[in-house]
């Protein structure tokens, strides 16, 4: 089942296309890594797809009314904003807003989704802590849990694992992988190509607003592609522990 379909999606800043005619579709069961150097248009692509930016071309999400879209796709922005000193539990419960009738208290279903999100991100111990007093990485995990609590078929996350410790990075990518296996679709932008190679079922590689490659990690992280897009060399190996990718040197 297709959960996101983009058809020649283009986002311009002034005259310059920041995302240039990207056509892609993502189905249930996929954990898609969105990779590319700084300024490649990853964030703009995700925001355009959600209809948060004016754009040309089609996105299956923007044809939905806002409330319906919010029950279909959750979004974790790159800027990790927590404006008020609310408890972790309250913050995660905000993810239920699209499901609640106006002014209603969380119902048993909502409570279940909140508990599931807390459990998935391993935040039981933080539940009653004040979110603004947590460390940056902990806040990121809380915000991921918030997006999980929205319990949508599709999850879009913009650099969710940046700044997390190795254990949390791996655990988070595993959560995304598990979500995909359970029938959700996840699109996550990230800079750690090693984690992308190991945990994503599919990679989208962007450069200067264009989609350069789209496919299984081994077909995307080829020497040619990473030299052309990132200007680096890399090492790929299929091991007993699964695929391993390590960036090596800057070329030229």
């Amino acid at each position, binding site marked *: 089942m297709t959960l996101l379909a983009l058809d020649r999606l283009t986002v311009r800043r002034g005259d310059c296309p920041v995302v240039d005619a990207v056509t892609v579709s993502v189905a249930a069961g996929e954990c898609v890594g969105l990779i590319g150097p700084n300024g490649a248009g990853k964030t703009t692509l995700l925001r355009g797809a959600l209809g948060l930016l004016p754009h040309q071309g089609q996105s299956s999400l923007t044809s939905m009314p806002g409330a319906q879209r919010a029950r279909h796709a959750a979004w974790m922005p790159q*800027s990790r904003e927590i404006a008020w*000193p609310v408890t972790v539990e309250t913050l995660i419960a905000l993810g239920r807003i699209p499901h609640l009738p106006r002014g209603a208290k969380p119902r048993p279903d909502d409570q279940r989704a909140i508990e599931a999100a807390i459990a998935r991100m391993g935040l039981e111990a933080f539940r009653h802590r004040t979110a603004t007093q947590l460390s940056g990485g902990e806040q990121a995990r809380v*915000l991921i849990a918030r997006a999980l609590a929205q319990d949508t078929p599709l999850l879009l996350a913009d650099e969710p694992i940046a700044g997390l410790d190795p254990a949390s990075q791996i655990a988070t990518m595993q959560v995304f992988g598990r979500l995909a296996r359970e029938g959700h679709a996840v699109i996550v932008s990230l800079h750690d190509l090693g984690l992308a190679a190991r945990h994503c079922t599919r990679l989208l590689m962007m450069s200067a607003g264009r989609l350069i490659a789209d496919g299984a990690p081994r077909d995307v992280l080829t020497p040619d592609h990473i030299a052309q897009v990132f200007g680096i060399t890399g090492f790929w190996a299929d091991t007993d522990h699964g695929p391993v990718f390590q960036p090596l040197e800057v070329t030229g």
Partner: protein
Amino acid sequence: MKLAALLVALCAALFVVSLTSGQVNASVGESLVALWRDDGLPLSVVMQEIRLPRALLAVMIGASLGMAGAAMQGFLRNPLAEPGLIGVSGSAALGAVLAIQTGLTLFFPLALPLAALSGAVLAVVLILLLAGPRGASITLILAGIAISALAGALTSLVLNLSPNPFAAADIVFWMMGSLADRSFDHVWLALPFMMLGWALLALSARGLDALTLGEDAAQAMGINLARLRLMLVIGTASCVGAATAVAGAVGFVGLVVPHLLRGFVGARPSSLLWASALGGAAMVLAADIAVREILPQRDLKLGVLMALVGAPLFLHLIFKTRKEMA
């Protein structure tokens, strides 16, 4: 819920004290009975036509300013935001000043609040034009500052060019804010606007909660930011415009009350709305009692007292915040 009960009880107690404080000496029981008696005795007239509208206005104005302050802070995600920020109170004051200056108030007494309301409405139209149909909250702040500055400058100009020193004195006194000598006419004039404002602000509660996560995340959760901003601007303007129209400029309530109560509601913007409404009502009631009890002969102005109490409270909050940050 405990907080709600506490604040309601506080408001009720202060309401009774407000009804029974003033220059006519009578016991609490006597006064409250006189409220319901239709005998034309002086005490009944005082209670029904002077003190009751005064206490009601204190509640309405306090609730409006408190709620608008909480909404503004929630929307801008800034604890320093206050309802006057969008320029409505300044413009309402300008309208009132013009009504005094031109002598309109001599012809019919409601000219002043009506002119103030017109000023507020004009400010809303202007701010929506300036801030544009969509866009970040920053354009709203800038537009508000521009309108406030313009209204302030024009008010000064009116004072500057005023040929009549009595009108100038009237203007200055009116701008200090007061609830003295208000009647039910003022209640009925302000109430519809305030009720509209309360309803709009209450409807924005869920959007304000979502905004805790930033504009992008809120929008992705199905919150229509353009509509939220429209509801907020019109709601705040109705509340603050009506309050300024009947009582003059009463500052600090919208800034301090949400600050004081934020910790008690777990910082949740939607809960802070109703808590600040109740807290604001209690604060204005208390201040209006104080102006009558401290200097009964001198007509101490509500706005002046509020600023005198509000500023140190605010300083206290700064020290508290500094300690938390350290």
